[in-house]
Structure formats: C-alpha cells, structure tokens
C-alpha cells in the first residue's frame, strides 16, 4: 500500500512561490502566455488566478509535486473552463432570440440544436487550426504527423509511440513545432 502524500499547506505553497528562481518565473510566464492564447483574459490574469486558487486552497498541491508544475496545471484547468464558457463561445454562433425560427438559424430554446452547432463550429475551428499549423511544415512529414496526432486527441507518450520517434527526436520536434508556431502566431490563433 502506498504511503499517503502530504498536501502542501497554504504557507508552504506561498513560501515555495516566494523562493522561485528567475528561470522558474520565466517558465511560468511562458506557460501563462500559452494558456491565455485563446481566452479573453491576459497572461497576468491567468497567472494571478492560479496563485489565488492555490492560496485559497481550492486547488491542493501534493508535497511531491513541483510548485511550478502545480501552477501550470491550475492555469491549464482555468483556461479550459474559461474557454468553454458560453459567453466565450457564443460569439462564434449565429444565434437568434427565442421566437419563430428563421431559415438556417439556431433557436436558443432548442438546446440540442445549439449543442450540435457548437460541436460543428468546434470541429471546423479545430480543423482550421490543424491545417494552419501543418502548413508551417511543408517539408517536414514528422512534424505534420505529430500535429495530426495531436489534433486526433493523442498526447504524451502515445504521441511519441504513434509517430515512431525516439525520445530525443520527439523532444526536438516538439520544440521545433512550438517555436515555429510561436513565431507565426505570437498572439495566438488569429486565423
């Protein structure tokens, strides 16, 4: 039976954050920029929200988890929840108010229709982004395969196995993709 891992107290988390190095702050800033890419808030807001949740205890940090990783996971979660909020997705939808249905419009009262529309738009955006990312690597089949696998929902070790890349090549390809997309889309996905 595994020994239970202690949860860091609020003071321990605060102390660990106070002692972060310049490199750790740089990592946090780079990560907050990534997760703020497709959300209405900026990177600082996201980072601050992760601090607040850690201090309020609404997210618990196990003692064996690096605080930087813990804050990155908090930002990932906050970003995902925010991007899924109706007000952040609704702008993409051709919605009309309740009333007589117009041709091709979505009736807000028909939740199934709204959900289907959201799914279709989501799939369309995903495909546009996959194509845009893939187009940055016209001569690099490995990078395109990796992007296709990501778009198909694979992650972590699955990605590496699926693309038949050894660890070193996988890490190097991952970095190339990040830096190339960063260079072409410095402010996120504005397609």
């Amino acid at each position, binding site marked *: 039976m595994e020994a239970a891992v202690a949860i860091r107290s609020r003071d321990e988390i605060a102390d660990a954050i106070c002692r972060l190095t310049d*490199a750790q702050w*740089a*990592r946090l800033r780079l990560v907050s920029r990534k997760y703020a890419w*497709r959300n209405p808030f900026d990177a600082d807001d996201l980072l601050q929200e992760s*601090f*607040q949740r850690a201090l309020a205890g609404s997210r618990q940090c196990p003692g064996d988890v690096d605080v930087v990783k813990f804050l990155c996971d908090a930002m990932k979660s906050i970003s995902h929840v925010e991007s899924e909020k109706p007000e952040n997705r609704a702008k993409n939808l051709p919605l009309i108010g309740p009333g007589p249905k117009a041709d091709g419009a979505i009736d807000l009262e028909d939740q199934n229709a709204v959900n289907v529309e959201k799914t279709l738009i*989501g799939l369309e955006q995903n495909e546009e982004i996959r194509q845009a*990312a893939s187009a940055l690597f016209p001569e690099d089949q490995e990078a395109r395969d990796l992007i296709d696998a990501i778009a198909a929902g694979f*992650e972590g070790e699955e990605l590496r196995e699926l693309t038949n890349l050894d660890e070193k090549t996988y890490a190097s390809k991952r970095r190339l993709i990040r830096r190339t997309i*960063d260079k072409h889309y410095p402010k996120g996905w504005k397609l």
Partner: protein
Amino acid sequence: MTGDDKKERSTPDRLADLFVEDILAASDSEILAEFAERHGDIAKNAADGRALFEKSLLAANKAKLHAAQAAVAAKRFAGNVTVFDIGEAREKLRRALAACPPEMKLTLAARKENELSDADVIGMLEDFEELGVLPPRDGK
C-alpha cells in the same frame, strides 16, 4: 485527466499542452535564453511575477482576515442572542413589578407593563437581572 476531458479538449488546447510540456522539459539555461530573446529582461519578469504574487497574497490574507472577523462576530452574536417568548417575558415583568419592594423607585410608565414595547420589556428584565431583583437567566 479523465477520458471525457481528453475528448473535449480542442486542437488549440492540445497544442498548448504540448508546448507547456516542452517548456517544462527545457533546461533552465534554455528557458532563460529563450525568454531573454523573445520577451526581454529576465530579472524584471521575476520581479513582476513576485509583485503579482504579493498582490494575490495580500488579497488572500485580507479575505482570510475578513472571514476570521466574520466568524468571531457570528460567534459573539450567537452567544448574545437569547430567544424570548414575549408573553412569558411580560408575565415575568408583571410578577417582578408586583413583587418590587416599595423602596425601589419605578416610573409610572414602568409600572404599566401593558404600555411598554417588547424591546422595553426585555430591556427592563435585563435591568432587573443586573440589579439582582430577578435571578439571571440560564447561560447569562
């Protein structure tokens, strides 16, 4: 992450996850070099980050203090609250007034219990308890 979460994540979310994986895997020197090249002053970034954290810490401490103050106030309020049956209170006051020794000077209004408001009745009962005319209630 659950299977459902995984299914729901969009392509940009998944790409962001891959990028973060890369950022966390990079060495300190690689991250510092990249940051300096693309975003500028490393020391300023750390100072800005610390300032942001201090702001969050201050806000969290204030929230904690307010919560503690509210808890103390609620406890104090709960400790001071006595539930009165006003009918019983008036009856008790009538008995106390009737039994009141002649040397105690009471105003005419005080002797007419039926003209007193509920708050006056309770106030007078408390005064009588303080004066020792009435025994203290339980818990007082």
